């Protein structure tokens, strides 16, 4: 789940923005009382209207359930015109105009940037008991300088998906190391020159970041107010060199994930594997409907046999925006959705979310696999194991959007012009550091 279906950045959203303005202007009165997290029921019986942007399929059911139980706080779901960075850039721009929705879905890697641009607010005073429900690792994704800025919804460890039928025909097993993955990729391409075990995704920087995390990279670290940026560190260089080798040998496709070409290849059996993440079963039915029942999930191949660390691709928190006129009520909704049994059961059933809240990973709703993986009854058990060994960066950069757009440009060019991935990586590093220095962030080194 939680993935973009493309990166067409240009769908206009004037209509959505207009709706948002109308909705935020609609209700006055019921001002948040500050320390109380249930301000709605106090005093006047005016209904509070909230808006939420969320691109996940199945969210309407979640919102409807809340609205039925809370006549005082009515939430309206707005599908954003774009997902991922298309949405985050819009949130930053609209924040200046004061037209943001009350609540939004934001992936973890964009949170520091949202805080830096004052798009979202700290939830400390509205949700004081939140921390107890989450592991430190999950909390670290939303906590900056001691303040919590969002309620973690899910974690999305990277997972390897492969076509069981193709593998067994060739007598292959799911690769456990990257060396084996490379050998399998070559074997599959040799057996059928049209087939590929996977693709190198130059369009999605978070995919590459996840692979770098697994290798032990730490792109951003901080000490005090100082940043250290190490996007071209040894671990990341290792990952880049590995994939460059596969691309150069021609055993891996250079087509970006979710592109038209790749979707077609996934559906017609040309692409027989996908280095993806926990949410893939939510996307595969639309990407490759005619391959239903042929996929299996396995732990991501490791750099050294037995190392269980994986990175993440995606995963998001729900945040309350600085534009919201009813932050207390918004926080209340966000907490209900992401950290109560009722909310999380709805998310698991309707959105295929793998919850970040520790208690929720034992919910009975997780005992049956998502529909697309019905042949793999222990799907969620596997996810639970994998999720225990998630390795992340210390923090995501305050200008991660610059890093990511630079990644897409640099690696797409490297693929197009057959130039070195190492150089592309240096470019991403330089662009990121230059932009941080230009804005006035303290960057070490």
């Amino acid at each position, binding site marked *: 789940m939680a993935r973009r279906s*493309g*990166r*067409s*950045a*240009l769908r206009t959203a004037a209509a959505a923005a207009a709706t948002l303005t109308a909705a935020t202007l609609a209700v006055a009165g019921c001002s948040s009382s500050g320390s109380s997290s249930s301000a709605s029921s106090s005093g006047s019986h005016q209904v509070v209207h909230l808006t939420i942007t969320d691109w996940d399929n199945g969210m309407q059911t979640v919102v409807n359930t809340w609205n039925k139980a809370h006549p005082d706080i009515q939430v309206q779901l707005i599908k954003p015109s774009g997902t991922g*960075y298309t949405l985050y*850039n819009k949130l*930053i*721009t609209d924040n200046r105009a004061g037209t943001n929705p009350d609540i939004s879905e934001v992936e973890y890697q964009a949170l*520091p*940037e949202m*805080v*830096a*641009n*004052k798009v979202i607010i700290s939830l400390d005073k509205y949700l004081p008991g939140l921390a107890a429900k989450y592991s430190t690792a999950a909390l670290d994704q939303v906590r*900056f*300088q001691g303040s919590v800025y969002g309620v973690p919804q899910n974690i999305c460890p990277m997972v390897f998906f492969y076509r069981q039928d193709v593998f067994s025909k060739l007598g292959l097993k799911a690769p456990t190391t990257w060396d084996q993955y490379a050998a399998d990729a070559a074997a599959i391409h040799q057996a059928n020159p049209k087939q590929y075990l996977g693709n190198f995704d*130059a*369009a999605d920087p978070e995919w590459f970041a996840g692979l770098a995390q697994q290798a032990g990279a730490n792109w951003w670290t*901080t000490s*005090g*107010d100082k*940043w250290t940026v190490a996007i071209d560190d040894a671990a990341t260089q290792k990952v880049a060199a590995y994939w460059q080798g596969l691309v150069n040998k021609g055993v891996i496709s*250079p*087509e*970006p994930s*979710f*592109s*038209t*070409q790749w979707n*077609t*290849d996934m559906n017609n059996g040309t692409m027989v594997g996908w280095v993806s993440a926990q949410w893939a079963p939510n996307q595969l039915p639309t990407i490759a409907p005619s391959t239903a029942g042929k996929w299996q999930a396995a732990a991501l191949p490791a750099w050294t046999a037995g190392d269980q660390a994986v990175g993440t691709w995606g995963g998001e928190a729900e945040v309350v925006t600085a534009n919201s006129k009813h932050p207390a009520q918004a926080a209340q909704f966000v907490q209900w959705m992401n950290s109560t049994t009722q909310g999380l059961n709805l998310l698991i059933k309707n959105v295929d979310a793998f919850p970040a809240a520790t208690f929720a990973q034992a919910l009975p709703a997780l005992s049956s696999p998502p529909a697309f993986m019905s042949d793999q009854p222990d799907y969620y058990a596997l996810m639970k194991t994998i999720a225990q060994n998630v390795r992340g960066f210390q923090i995501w950069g*305050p*200008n991660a*959007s*610059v890093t990511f*757009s630079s990644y*897409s*440009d640099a*690696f*797409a*060019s490297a*693929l*197009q*012009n057959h130039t070195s991935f190492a150089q592309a990586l240096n470019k991403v590093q330089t662009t990121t550091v230059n*932009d941080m220095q*230009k*804005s*006035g*962030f303290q960057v070490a080194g």
Partner: protein
Amino acid sequence: MAKRRPRLLPVLLVTPALVLLALFTIAPAGYALYLSLMKVRVSGGLLGTTTTQVFAGAGNYVATFTDPEFWHSLGRMLLVAVVGVPATVILATLFALCLDANRARLTTVTRLAIFLPYAVPGVIASLLWGFLYLPATSPIGGEVINYFGGRTIFFTVANVAVWGVVGFNTVVLYTALRALPRDTVEAAQIDGASEAQIALRIKLPLIAPAIAMISLFSVIGALQLFNEPTALRPLANAITSTWVPLMRVYSDAFVNNDIYGGAASAFTLLVMTVTATVLVRVLANQLTRRERG
């Protein structure tokens, strides 16, 4: 009273145009100029939550001019223009002359057919063409020809743009042709000129001003290249987010969250567009004059 009216009327007549120009062209351009001279400085801890807008002087312009990517994007735009502008002008002229030929039949239907692509929005046209180009879906040899290759990409993008605008330009030229005095053409016929000779020696020079005008529009259109490469971008690795100057402006302002740098590039581009427009006009005028003289 009697004297005042003739003075007031001309002013009144141009007022709507001037007001609109001031409000929606000059004012935004002025604001862009202002923004391009500013920059943002963050302070206040790790995430820099305190931001102040400070004067940047020429800093943003220096950054634009010293960024090799700016010149590369300009170069790529020119390459598309070098392919696209002549193709548009030549095809439009050819179609218009054919339609205007004496022996042409079914001209109304044909004119409509040629014009039709102009009615298709650029983004949709790009997506349609994208599917025609992609190996997975291509009926026009995408399996064999790599339409997204290092060199082919310029033709690929130019083709979408040309396909979209040729019809409009054809109609402009055709209208110019229909407005020519018929006796000139008839005189040529009586003198024994062939259909081709009439087209090339009589009609073509006479519609030279119209051709100059569509050339000018095509050049301006090329400078504003954005829709086609942006819509084609997700399909392959060939097009980066800064592929042409306008994409770079968009990327700076709305992806990299640097509205100031974006404004500087936008303003630079504005100056370049105006300069190019003036240059093309002067050139076209001289050409026309020379042919008349």
